[in-house]
């Protein structure tokens, strides 16, 4: 039993350590700051600047969050406070199904529906685009992150005791005022965690984004430009170009960055959720 637990805990360490050891060669050659802030990506010349990829990841995730947060939070509030309980159960099942759909199917749907949509939108706004763009990637990520955000914030909202709402209503507040000042105020931390969990999910998503974001290693100028997020970089190149020195190491460094960023976000969110659970 102790062994089993030790095994469970050591996996995280092993993954982190394995990736770190493999990315040491490139860290010895170049400073981490230079790697993160340079935008020269020429593996054949030995130049590895992650800047365009990091910006690409942040922007695509940012767009996803801007699109997803309002819709998801309003849906969760509706389900928790206004909907009939039977509808709430149906919606829960639906959200579970959304979470279960494989990412490659989201990607395929993005290619069929979102890419032509963004292309048409670009034409309407006089910005020629192929449709394979930041916006399309952000939209698919928004859809993929929403089951996480909705289900976690719904759980959190349901932890508020019914008496708290009744007390506010008894003081003469309207229903919306009770929700705003009592329910949302007391669950702010939990809702924040739900958003962070959604962010982490979107940040590391690979295949669906890779299929529709365009994959051009340049800093995008508008949301109709293609971008190249870190996970897509890793998926496209790893395993092929092992012969170029340091390339392998550079790619594993990007995996390490992904792991670290996502873990930090997840730990923050989970610790906050644990504190809520204890109450």
């Amino acid at each position, binding site marked *: *039993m102790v062994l089993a637990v030790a095994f469970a805990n050591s996996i995280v360490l092993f993954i982190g350590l394995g990736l770190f050891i493999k990315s040491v060669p490139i860290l010895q050659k170049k400073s981490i700051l230079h790697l993160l802030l340079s935008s020269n990506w020429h593996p054949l010349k030995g130049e590895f600047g992650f800047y365009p990829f990091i910006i690409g990841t942040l922007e695509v995730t940012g767009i996803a969050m801007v699109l997803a947060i309002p819709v998801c939070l309003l849906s969760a509030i509706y389900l928790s406070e206004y909907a009939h309980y039977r509808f709430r159960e149906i919606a829960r099942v639906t959200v579970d199904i959304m979470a279960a759909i494989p990412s490659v199917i989201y990607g395929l749907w993005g290619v069929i529906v979102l890419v032509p949509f963004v292309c048409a939108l670009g034409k309407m706004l006089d910005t020629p685009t192929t449709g394979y763009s930041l916006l399309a990637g952000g939209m698919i990520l928004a859809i993929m992150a929403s089951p996480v955000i909705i289900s976690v914030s719904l759980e959190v909202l349901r932890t508020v005791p019914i008496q708290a709402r009744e007390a506010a209503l008894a003081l003469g507040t309207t229903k919306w005022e009770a929700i705003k000042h009592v329910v949302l105020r007391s669950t702010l931390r939990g809702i924040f965690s739900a958003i962070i969990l959604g962010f982490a999910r979107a940040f590391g998503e690979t295949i669906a984004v890779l299929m529709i974001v365009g994959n051009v290693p340049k800093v995008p100028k508008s949301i109709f430009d293609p971008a190249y997020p870190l996970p897509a970089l890793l998926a496209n190149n790893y395993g092929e170009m092992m012969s170029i020195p340091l390339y392998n190491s550079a790619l594993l460094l990007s995996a390490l960055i992904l792991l670290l960023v996502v873990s930090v*976000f997840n*730990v923050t969110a989970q610790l906050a959720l644990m504190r809520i659970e204890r109450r």
Partner: protein
Amino acid sequence: MIASMTLVLAVLAGILVVIVVRGAPSLTLAMIIQTPEGGYYLGKGGGIANAIVGSLCLAFGASFLSFLFGLPIAFALQKEYLGRRLAQITRLSLDILWGTPSIVYGAFGFIIMVYFGLRASLLGGIIALALLMLPIMIRSIEEVIRMTPPELKEASYALGATRIETTLTVVLRQALPGIVTGVLLAFGRGIGDAASILFTAGYTDYIPHSLFDPVASLPLAIFFQVATPIPEVQQRAYAAALILLIIVLLISLASRFLSRRCSRHIVR
């Protein structure tokens, strides 16, 4: 608020409808039971049986492997075996694992494979997928184990049963619905994951004969075929997506049904 709820439901409906409408016309029996023939990727005959069988092999293998490790870990998280502090740390590290992007598992799996001198193979894919499934399985089994009423365990201890006996007889039975849901949830997640098997499982036109053969898989079949410029091949990607979607939805349904069945014998 109702508008945003409708939007969420409409997007899901849109995804299901588009995949079914695009996939259904090219979904034939030949697609399911034949492996690719010569010139398949130029639009000639054949099917994706290699990918279907490959995906099932990968998912079953990985589920089995992670169940083997996952069940003892889930049991060990009970307070009889572990202090509160350590259990909490373990839960946190499992949550980190749950959130880890699958591409990172793929890269890590590849490092392990290179270290042990393995090529891209069924075994490599199974290892990477098992890592991905492990936290999902443990956390959902453990959620249910935690719901076991303490009185029930105490009754068992009062009769003189040891910790292990209580775990294997009383707790195991109580946890059965959780085990079923956990395994199926992990299976469904594993069968649809592409990023972790991208470098570890390889891709081939044949059905694998041993653990060390490379193996095809449905998600990668979709991923590769949709990238080709030939419409007939793209059609097949849609059909493959429909097959994958049906498998995933069936698993999701089965887990709901089975967990309800198993929870009949539970003491609450």
